[in-house]
């Protein structure tokens, strides 16, 4: 990749990636370990004619982000556990009203105030089910500073194309770690924009799905006057409680994910011939996993590795592929066992599944994972 070389912190790479993707609005509320995203954008957004605002809390920040997105601005907010909890109310709103936006959660230990400066991966299930009601969920989990940049761009792209909120889950380790990265020149990474209406305003129906399950979205103020609500609504955007309309709407929101797995799923499967052990991991734990797998190889133990880059939707097929081959799957994660349940559910008994878990604010070490590999080998 050609481009500009910089030595960035993960949070800075996230903010830079957002700008690259076309983000022109940020609303947030300070919280460790995510604050650098806000600080970076407070400096940079006005320079590109965008807007930054520090709101009174995370609920307000999420609301402002949705408001700005409705006017056509790609919008971002960034937070950590306690703030992510507060985002949930309006994240659900963005799901049902189908408003693109990106939410960064630099994960720290919890519950509640937990470990403000300690890394964690314990918001995995919250990213899936955190807001009430059935709803689609998309969450990406980069594992390096470079990947934070590119996955932030991808988060915006997906959010725009599917008209749904996307969470980017990083953690205190990669959020604060510095690495040399390349910022690609403009145009090198593809940038997607939301579908916009091609019909004249008088024919526009904001949730018309006759052309596909993602309805074109008009910017407020562009001449297409319409209504947006968090109530279940019909194709005109007005509330309805007709069972014959509500159920299809609910199912369509989910289908936006299940029918777009080709653009959503992203993982790396590193195979070793004859391996009887597999590791499934993500984010900074994937870094330790990779190191452990290297050490195991030196000791003559072959281990397959599935690194999840998209967490939600979960890549069931890849997990099953691994389970059909190996006897045991190890799931290292900085929590007391969340992603492991999804692995177990997906593979339905095809292999043994064991965790490597840590929730003390310290990273999982390669040695810990290697120990588990030796145990099951």
């Amino acid at each position: 990749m050609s481009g500009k070389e910089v030595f960035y912190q993960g949070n800075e790479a996230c903010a830079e990636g957002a700008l690259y993707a076309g983000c022109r609005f940020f609303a947030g509320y300070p919280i460790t370990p995510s604050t650098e995203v806000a600080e970076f954008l407070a400096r940079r957004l006005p320079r590109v004619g965008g807007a930054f605002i520090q709101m009174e809390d995370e609920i307000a920040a999420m609301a402002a982000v949705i408001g700005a997105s409705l006017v056509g601005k790609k919008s971002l907010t960034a937070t950590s556990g306690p703030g992510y909890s507060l985002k949930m109310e309006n994240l659900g709103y963005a799901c049902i009203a189908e408003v693109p936006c990106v939410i960064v959660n630099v994960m720290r230990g919890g519950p509640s105030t937990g470990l403000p400066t300690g890394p964690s991966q314990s918001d995995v299930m919250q990213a899936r089910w955190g807001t009430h009601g059935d709803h689609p969920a998309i969450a990406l989990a980069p594992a390096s500073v470079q990947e934070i940049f590119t996955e932030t761009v991808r988060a915006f792209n997906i959010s725009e194309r599917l008209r749904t909120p996307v969470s980017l889950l990083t953690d205190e380790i990669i959020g604060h770690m510095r690495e040399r990265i390349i910022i690609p020149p403009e145009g090198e990474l593809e940038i997607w924009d939301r579908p916009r209406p091609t019909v004249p305003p008088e024919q526009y129906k904001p949730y018309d799905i006759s052309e596909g399950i993602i309805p074109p979205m008009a910017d407020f103020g562009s001449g297409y006057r319409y209504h947006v609500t968090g109530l279940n609504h019909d194709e005109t955007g007005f509330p309805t409680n007709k069972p014959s309309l509500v159920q299809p709407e609910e199912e369509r929101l989910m289908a936006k994910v299940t029918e777009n797995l080709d653009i959503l799923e992203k993982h790396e499967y590193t195979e070793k011939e004859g391996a009887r052990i597999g590791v499934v991991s993500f984010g900074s734990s994937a870094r330790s996993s990779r190191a452990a797998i290297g050490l195991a190889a030196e000791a003559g133990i072959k281990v397959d590795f599935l690194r999840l880059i998209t967490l939600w939707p979960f890549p069931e097929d890849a997990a099953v592929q691994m389970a059909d081959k190996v006897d045991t799957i190890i799931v290292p994660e900085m929590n007391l066992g969340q992603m492991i349940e999804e692995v177990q559910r997906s593979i339905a008994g095809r292999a043994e599944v064991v965790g490597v878990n840590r929730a003390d604010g310290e990273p999982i070490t390669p040695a810990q994972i290697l120990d588990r590999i030796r145990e099951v080998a």
Partner: protein
Amino acid sequence: MTFNYDEYIRPGKLPHIWCPGCAHGIVMKSIIRAIDRVGLEKDKTVIVSGIGCASRMPGYVDFNTLHTTHGRSLAFATGVKMADPELNVIAVAGDGDALAIGGNHFIHTCRRNIDITMIVFNNNIYGMTGGQFSPTTPHGRLASTTPYGNPDYAFDVVELSIGAGASYVSRSTAYHAIPLERQIADGIAHKGFSVIDALCTCPTTYGRRNKLGNATEMLMWFKDNTVGVKAAEKMPPEKLEGKILTGVFKKEEKPEYCDEYAKIIERVSAKG
């Protein structure tokens, strides 16, 4: 000449959900006339609300309309306004929506002095959920959750707004539909955050329980128990006992948030 609302009401969206005798419709009509009076362009106007009976208002009117989550109208509206300061942004909310769950957003929007006009449909009760007390239910009143009388004391929307920094603050009532219209128009034309405390009535869940008479009698109560803030200056205190002051309480030119931010953009954007 009678005002023709047709241009502003969305075809097919009436009848509204409000009870017979509810004053929310009067406030809605005042807002429509005020918008017409100021001459706002429909395409460039966004009306934002939260959740509640009052917050259903945007669905009936032909603008860019945004019905959000309970209490959050001003936070969404702030994003809309900052994303395009050329848009005229109006927020409508019930008293519970604006001042209880939305209280934090309310005071901070006042402080920021962003150019949004907020109309509080203040009926002293949570209408939509069936008559629980709100932050403006007077002490001693009955509500479904204050069956022995409200032990709490009410917010004064005007004092709260002034204290928090709003630059235009007024109060009128659903009885005084024309002055209300004038104030809303004034608030929209004013650059900065404007709060209009629109006293209105919920005969269904508040009036009945507190034996305040029928819908008409509740409106007439406003006529008999309000005093214009200018007239009040010349009245002895005993005559003002128990009266509610109406009128414009504050109108101050002061820096507006988006203007200030635009200056920052101008100053730093040259640096690239």
